[in-house]
C-alpha cells in the first residue's frame, strides 16, 4: 500500500516540477547556465532575493532577458555585464573586487587575522608568565 502511495506521489510530482520551468533551451548546457545566472543575479526590487526566486515584475523581465541573451549565444560574463551597467554592482551576488567593495572581500580575512594575532599574543603571554612563576619557585 505504502509503496503504491509513494509511486503515486512521484508520478504526481513530475509535472509539477515541469510547470515551474517555462524557459525552453536547445541544450542542457544553456539550461544550466540559465539556472546559475538567475541564482547569481539579484532582484533590484525585492532585495535579498535572486531573480530566480523573485516573483516581482522586474525579476521576470530580467529572467526573460537572461534567457534570450543565452539563446542568442552571449557569454555568462556578457549577461552579467549587461545588468551591471544598468543596475550597478548591486545586481550581482558576486560583486567585483575594487576599492569600493574591498571591505566586503577583505573584511572577514582581516578580522580573522586580528583574532589569530590576539590568540598568539595571549598564548605567548600565558606561557611567559608560567615561566616566570616557575622562576619564582626556584
Amino acid at each position, binding site marked *: 500500500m505504502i509503496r503504491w502511495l509513494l509511486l503515486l506521489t512521484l508520478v504526481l510530482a513530475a509535472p509539477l516540477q515541469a510547470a515551474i520551468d517555462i524557459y525552453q533551451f536547445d541544450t542542457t548546457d544553456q539550461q544550466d547556465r540559465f539556472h546559475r545566472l538567475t541564482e547569481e543575479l539579484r532582484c*533590484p526590487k525585492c532585495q535579498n532575493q535572486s531573480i530566480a526566486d523573485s516573483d516581482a515584475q522586474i525579476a521576470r523581465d530580467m529572467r526573460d*532577458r537572461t534567457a534570450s541573451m543565452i539563446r542568442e549565444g552571449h557569454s555568462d560574463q556578457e549577461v552579467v555585464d549587461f545588468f*551591471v551597467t544598468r543596475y550597478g554592482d548591486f545586481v550581482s551576488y558576486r560583486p567585483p573586487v575594487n576599492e569600493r567593495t574591498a571591505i566586503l572581500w577583505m573584511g572577514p580575512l582581516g578580522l580573522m587575522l586580528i583574532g589569530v594575532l*590576539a590568540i598568539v599574543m595571549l598564548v605567548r603571554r600565558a606561557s*611567559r608568565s608560567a615561566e616566570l612563576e616557575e622562576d619564582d619557585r626556584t
Partner: protein
Amino acid sequence: MSKKNTGLWVFLPLVGFVALALLLASGLGRNPEELPSALAGKPVPGFSKPSLITGDTLTEERLTGQWQLLNVWGTWCPTCYVEHPYLLELAQRGVPIVGMDYKDEDDKARDYLARYGNPFSEVIVDADGQLGLDLGVYGAPETFLINPRGEIVLRHVGELNQRAWDEKFAPVLRQAGNPLGGPS
C-alpha cells in the same frame, strides 16, 4: 610584558566593538531602496518608441537640448497617483517633464491623463519595459534629471515631492545656472 601594558590591552575588544557599532549604525540610516544609479553621468540609452500623444516615433534625441525630467509612471502604480499633483505643479512652474508610460496600456494611460491632467510635454510608450530595463528602472515612479546633452545627471526612486525636489534636483539646477533651480 609589563603590567601597565596589559591594562591597556583590556580595552581593545571595547574599542573594536565601538568601531563595529559605529560602522553598522551608519548603515542603518540609509534607505536600501536607494541604489546608486549605474547610469549617472551617462547618456540616455538609445531608443525608438512611439509617443502616447501623437503616435510618432520618439528617439533619445527628444531628451536633449534642455534640462528636463524623465518621469517613469504607469496607471498600475499607486504611488504615481500620489505624485501626480506635484508633477502638475512642477509643469506649471515651467519644468519640462517627459513622461515614460512604463508597462501600461495606452487607453488606460490616455484616460488617466485626461482625468487627472497632463504634466508631460511628451509621453514615451514603453509597453514592453525594454527601455525601462536599459535605464535600470525597477519600478515606478522613478524620475531622472537629464541635462541638455542628453546625459542622466541624477535619478530619484519613489515619489517625487517638494522635499526630494529641494534636496536633490534644485541644487543641481542652481549649480548649472538654470533658473528652474530657484534663487541661490
